[in-house]
């Protein structure tokens, strides 16, 4: 069931929130020994909230489509009175005294969190092979990574444990697990969703967004969490619209940019075939496919890496005396950031301004860009390299190759499943829009989804 279907069933009293929440908890707890998606269950609190939601509905109070819907939160979002680990030994026993703005907003919309989700340590990586809390496994094949850093979020949604999960994306961390786990993942425009109360990784690169089963469900969650927050200076005053695409949305005349350079280089063949198939479907729906040359993405990725290395090391500087508290991969990145001079960070921010101006020109020619979310399907847990186009690449660099630059640009980006490999692993299509064009990319995604772009449900986890 999707959020929309569950909300309809709640509205017609076919089911209660208590029943939905009990079922979600049962599914999640049953799958957890296999997937390790959840770090903390909040069953008692969730059941209290579900009872409250049912009482409110019975009394005629309707908080909207998320009212009474079980969800879960990446364990990077502060939750008052509930342990928030960030997947780190440093925060193993941290119990915040306040909620993140996103958590407040979801609660106000009536959503019921059943627990906190596992992630790559400190959200600083893409495998979710957490050295302190154990690796998250991919529900499509438990020998494979779910991606990261929001790996628990992707696994929990794909396994059907919850209807939506919140993730964060600093260099692809919503879109990568969405791609590898076969869910929808939405990274909104920087500033669209408050960052307040989410443990930071890269101040100028962090984005908050949902992973869901369908595009319209992602839009429903965005409706609940978007908007200005006075506690986050970088949050936008932009007007929040209804992001949910209309039924039978059409994309006639929408100009889809098909990158001629970079984004289709060195792809797994099955990824390329599936993504080109989805783009052909857009064309069959009378979208206008326009080949475009994109600015130097390799350069922008380098710029984004310098910015992230510096910002993440600044965030963690107070903890660098406890080197034994960090996993090996994260410690390596933090050390790298500490070696970068301040001048490189400033130069990277200058380059970021220059390159953003170059990218802005694209929106005169096209309304969105379409290309793969990841060049590969989910690698095996523990894999350090991946073979693509005859080249052996570092798995982290390969997996972030098509997503990282979008964080530096701040643009909204949607990943939706568009196929399965012969080995049964999901493939993700990425749709990128101009600043604050979430409604447009969601409409395009919904039109594709309505017209057969997608994958079957994930088989039950043993």
């Amino acid at each position, binding site marked *: 069931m999707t959020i929309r279907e569950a909300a309809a069933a709640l509205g017609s009293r076919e089911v209660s929130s208590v029943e939905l929440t009990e079922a979600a908890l049962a599914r999640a707890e049953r799958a957890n020994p296999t997937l390790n998606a959840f770090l903390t269950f909040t069953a008692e609190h969730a059941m209290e909230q579900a009872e409250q939601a049912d009482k409110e509905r019975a009394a005629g109070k309707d908080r909207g489509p998320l009212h009474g819907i079980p969800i879960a939160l990446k364990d990077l979002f502060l939750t008052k009175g509930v342990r928030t680990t960030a997947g780190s030994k440093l925060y193993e026993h941290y119990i915040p005294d306040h909620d993140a703005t996103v958590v407040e907003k979801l609660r106000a919309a009536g959503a019921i969190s059943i627990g906190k989700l596992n992630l790559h340590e400190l959200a600083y990586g893409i495998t979710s092979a957490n050295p302190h809390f154990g690796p998250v496994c991919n529900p499509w094949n438990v020998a494979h990574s779910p991606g990261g850093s929001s790996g628990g979020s992707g696994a929990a949604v794909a396994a059907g444990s919850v209807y939506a999960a919140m993730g964060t994306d600093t260099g692809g961390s919503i879109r990568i697990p969405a791609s590898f786990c076969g869910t929808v993942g939405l990274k909104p*425009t*920087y*500033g669209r969703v408050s960052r307040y109360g989410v443990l930071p990784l890269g101040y*100028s690169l962090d984005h908050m967004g949902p992973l869901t089963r369908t595009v319209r469900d992602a839009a429903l969650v965005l409706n609940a969490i978007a908007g200005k927050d006075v506690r986050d200076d*970088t949050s*936008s*005053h*932009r007007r929040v619209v209804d992001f949910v695409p209309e039924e039978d949305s059409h994309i006639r005349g929408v100009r889809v940019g098909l990158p001629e350079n970079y984004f289709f280089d060195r792809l797994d063949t099955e990824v390329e075939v599936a993504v080109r198939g989805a783009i052909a479907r857009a064309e069959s729906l009378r979208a206008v496919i326009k080949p475009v040359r994109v600015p130097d993405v*390799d*350069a922008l990725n*380098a*710029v984004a*890496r*310098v910015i992230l290395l510096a910002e993440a090391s600044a965030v963690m500087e107070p903890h660098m005396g406890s080197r034994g508290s960090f996993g*090996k991969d994260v410690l*390596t990145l933090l*050390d*790298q950031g*500490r*070696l*970068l001079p301040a001048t*490189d960070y*400033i*130069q*990277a*921010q*200058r*380059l*970021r*301004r*220059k390159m*953003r101006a170059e990218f*802005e020109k694209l929106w005169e020619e096209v309304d969105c860009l379409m290309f793969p979310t990841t060049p590969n399907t989910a690698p095996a847990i523990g894999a350090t390299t991946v073979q693509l186009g005859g080249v052996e690449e570092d798995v982290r660099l390969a997996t972030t190759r098509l997503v990282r630059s979008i964080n530096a640009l*701040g643009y909204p980006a949607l990943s939706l499943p568009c196929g399965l490999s012969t080995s049964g692993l999901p493939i993700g299509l990425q749709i990128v829009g101009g*600043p*604050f064009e979430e409604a447009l990319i969601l409409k395009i995604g919904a039109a594709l989804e309505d017209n057969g772009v997608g994958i079957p449900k994930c088989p039950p986890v043993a």
Partner: protein
Amino acid sequence: MKDWKAVAQASGLGLSGEELERVTGPLAALEKTFRPLVEDLPPGLEPATGVLEDIE
């Protein structure tokens, strides 16, 4: 090009030989792409001081 091993050794991080390779190898690779970009920057260009004001 910058000698990242020398930078790391001078930094006082106290990295062992294996750690030194792990930390500096990727920085040297990143340097190859990043440094030429910096050299081409026009002098009057200011840094992006945040994302929001640039794209609104």
